[in-house]
């Protein structure tokens, strides 16, 4: 940042040979001549010529060629007119003075030219340094940016700061069709004419629009972003005048750098999309094969059991067993439907979390009541911290979370063992832990128990393997975390951490004891 500021100030000094400098050189020469007039009487007029030459040299060190030329011409004329006898005429009597005048003029001019040239070199060096710095900074920031949007933000900021232009990127959609709106600025839409120009530039890989020979009737100029493998799109800017010289070179280098960064991100996005499609294809297949299995089993049970009941007479205890099977199968179907619905809520990305204050005991009661039958073979030990504050959660979602966690535990913990449910509020977080006394989870599976369709090796029970992934989805929707671990001496432990501040229950209204 500092470097750029410095070089910019240099530039301001070196190029500002405006009308002010011409005026300044006239003033300096005039003033010098005026101050020298008493000197010429005592020391002779040749001394004045040296002083004037000296002043021209000084001027040449910080002025452009124009003002220096003016200063040399003016000082030659002033010297001639005011100092070379006869004074107040341009006439020169002595031949040596004519020679002196000519030499004076040439020396002043050469002095000016050489100094200017040296300064020009220096300016070029500064300018080169500035460009190098600009490019260095651009490439540094571009490679530091990750993701298409960040690259674009960097590119826009850099173009703005080095060219004072407001660029506008129009990218293609992956099928070589340009979008009609900006990637970052969705509100900025191209007019049909602009779109046509952008498209021409994109397909022909040549600039088009204003200041070009192709379709110059638009306000904007469109530059193609031509990558080595794909062309990410075009860049539109509104130029006051066409770029040329060094600016043009710098601009093209900028575009090339930006293009390669965009191309990198673009290819990344394409690859990710392909991976995503692959993944969803795989999920789709897994889902369908396991759903059809999961649906068929309970339906087969219901059909078989009810058919038996309908078609022949059985002792009442057999009837009871069969009806029990029908009931269990229907519960299983219901659970499956519930989980599929929850999964689709998560996958749709439309899950809305409606936080409200709840008594955690209500949640525990609701879930343990729903799981009454499943929990019957176990001893559920619930411990809720003394003076547990209200917690801010989405009750419906957390109900599914706790249901799935406890249900899952009942599927793996050995019958008649203890299941612990510990709940406390610590450091602004609700902490819920379900610990069983079972064999624990296979150590190598710990990282993937929350993945979709994960089923424990050799697990006897049915299920889609959706329960824990729903747990994770809903907990993350609360900005919380869920972890699985094995506790030595006990079994598997699932821990939930949900951010929840203490409720504001001071100053309850309308209360008088």
């Amino acid at each position, binding site marked *: 940042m500092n470097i750029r500021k410095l070089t910019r100030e240099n530039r301001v000094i070196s190029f500002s040979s405006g009308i002010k400098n011409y005026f300044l050189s006239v003033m300096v020469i005039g003033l010098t001549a005026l101050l020298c007039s008493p000197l010429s009487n005592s020391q002779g007029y040749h001394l004045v010529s040296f002083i004037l030459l000296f002043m021209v040299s000084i001027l040449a060190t910080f002025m452009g060629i124009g003002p220096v030329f003016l200063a040399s011409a003016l000082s030659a004329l002033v010297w001639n007119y005011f100092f070379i006898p006869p004074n107040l005429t341009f006439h020169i009597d002595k031949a040596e003075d004519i020679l002196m005048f000519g030499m004076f003029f040439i020396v002043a001019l050469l002095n000016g030219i050489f100094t200017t040239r040296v300064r020009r070199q220096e300016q070029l060096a500064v300018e080169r340094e500035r460009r190098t710095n600009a490019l260095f900074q651009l490439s540094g920031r571009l490679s530091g940016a990750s993701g298409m949007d960040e690259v674009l933000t960097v590119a826009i900021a850099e173009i703005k700061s080095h060219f004072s232009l407001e660029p506008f990127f129009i990218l293609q959609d992956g099928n070589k069709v340009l979008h009609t709106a900006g990637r970052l600025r969705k509100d900025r839409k191209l007019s049909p004419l602009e779109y046509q120009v952008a498209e021409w530039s994109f397909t022909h890989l040549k600039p088009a629009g204003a200041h070009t020979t192709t379709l110059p009737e638009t306000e904007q100029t469109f530059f193609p972003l031509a990558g080595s493998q794909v062309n990410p799109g075009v860049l539109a800017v509104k130029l006051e005048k066409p770029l040329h010289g060094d600016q043009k070179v710098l601009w093209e280098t900028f575009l090339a750098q930006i293009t390669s960064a965009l191309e990198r991100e673009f290819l990344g996005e394409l690859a990710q999309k392909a991976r995503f499609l692959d993944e969803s294809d795989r999920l789709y297949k897994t889902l369908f094969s396991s759903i059809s299995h999961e649906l068929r089993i309970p339906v087969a049970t219901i059909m078989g059991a009810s058919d038996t009941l309908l078609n022949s007479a059985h002792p009442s205890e057999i009837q009871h067993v069969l009806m029990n099977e029908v009931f269990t199968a*229907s519960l299983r179907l*219901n659970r499956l439907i519930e989980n599929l619905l929850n999964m689709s809520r998560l996958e749709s990305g439309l899950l809305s979390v*409606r936080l*409200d*204050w*709840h*008594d955690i*005991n*209500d*949640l*525990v*009661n*609701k879930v343990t009541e729903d799981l009454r039958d499943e929990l019957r073979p176990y001893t559920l030990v619930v411990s*809720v911290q003394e003076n547990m504050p*209200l917690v801010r959660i989405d*009750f*419906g979602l957390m*109900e599914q979370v706790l249901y799935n966690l406890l249900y899952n535990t009942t599927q793996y913990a050995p019958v008649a063992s203890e299941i612990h449910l510990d709940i406390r509020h610590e450091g602004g977080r609700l902490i819920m832990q379900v610990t069983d006394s079972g064999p624990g989870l296979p150590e190598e599976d710990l990282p993937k128990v929350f993945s979709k369709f994960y089923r424990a090796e050799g697990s006897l029970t049915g299920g889609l393997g959706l329960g824990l992934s729903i747990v994770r989805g809903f907990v993350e929707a609360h900005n919380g975390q869920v972890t699985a671990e094995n506790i030595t001496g006990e079994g598997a432990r699932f821990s939930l951490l949900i951010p929840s501040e203490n*409720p*504001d*229950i001071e100053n*309850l*209204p*309308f*209360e*008088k*004891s």
Partner: protein
Amino acid sequence: MSGTDTILIIDDELQIRRLLEITLTANGYKIIHAATGKSGLVDAATFNPSLIILDLGLPDKDGHEILKKLREWYFKPVIILSVRNSEEDIIRALDNGANDYLTKPFRSGELLARIRAAIRSSEIKPDEPLLTFGTLSIDMLNHVARRDNEILKLTATEFSLLALLAQNHGRVLTHQYILKEVWGHGYIEQTQYLRVFIAQIRKKIEDNPSKPTLLITESGIGYRFGE
């Protein structure tokens, strides 16, 4: 249980109507059923049933509309039985005057319990001066509640909250409704007040406050006072 109670079922699914008819008849109720909202309204007017079980997804009219129409003149209990399980639907139905809400699939035992509670609560006169629930009695005239004949120390707000729930016992009251009735319009978003007061009341009236049997939470919806 009164064996002569008539129940009107308004549901377009034949299987559900048949199931309900068998279950309810077996439990001593007389059943009338209607497959559309329109015929349901006619049947309600003709038979004046003791209770109506209403489905929300009817083919001719939205169940919420039927409920509103019914509530213009029908003041006995209405229980909603629907596959719609969103909190919005449930709260809307309760605010429109439904006494209770059960989602399909349901357990018949649960439905029977809700029906019994609803019919019983409809038999209590609204200005009954003394309400009794097991060992708990609430004296509306003297603003006193007793448990095992011991006077409970209740604050004014706690008493009005308890009284409101008890007078509507068997019926689900939404959070917004309770907050509006007890605290006033400006407080209908302040559910945390309600939770705190409910917890305090539970400590005084429940045997095990963390496993309440009288003051029941209807998750995300509101509270019900029952036994």
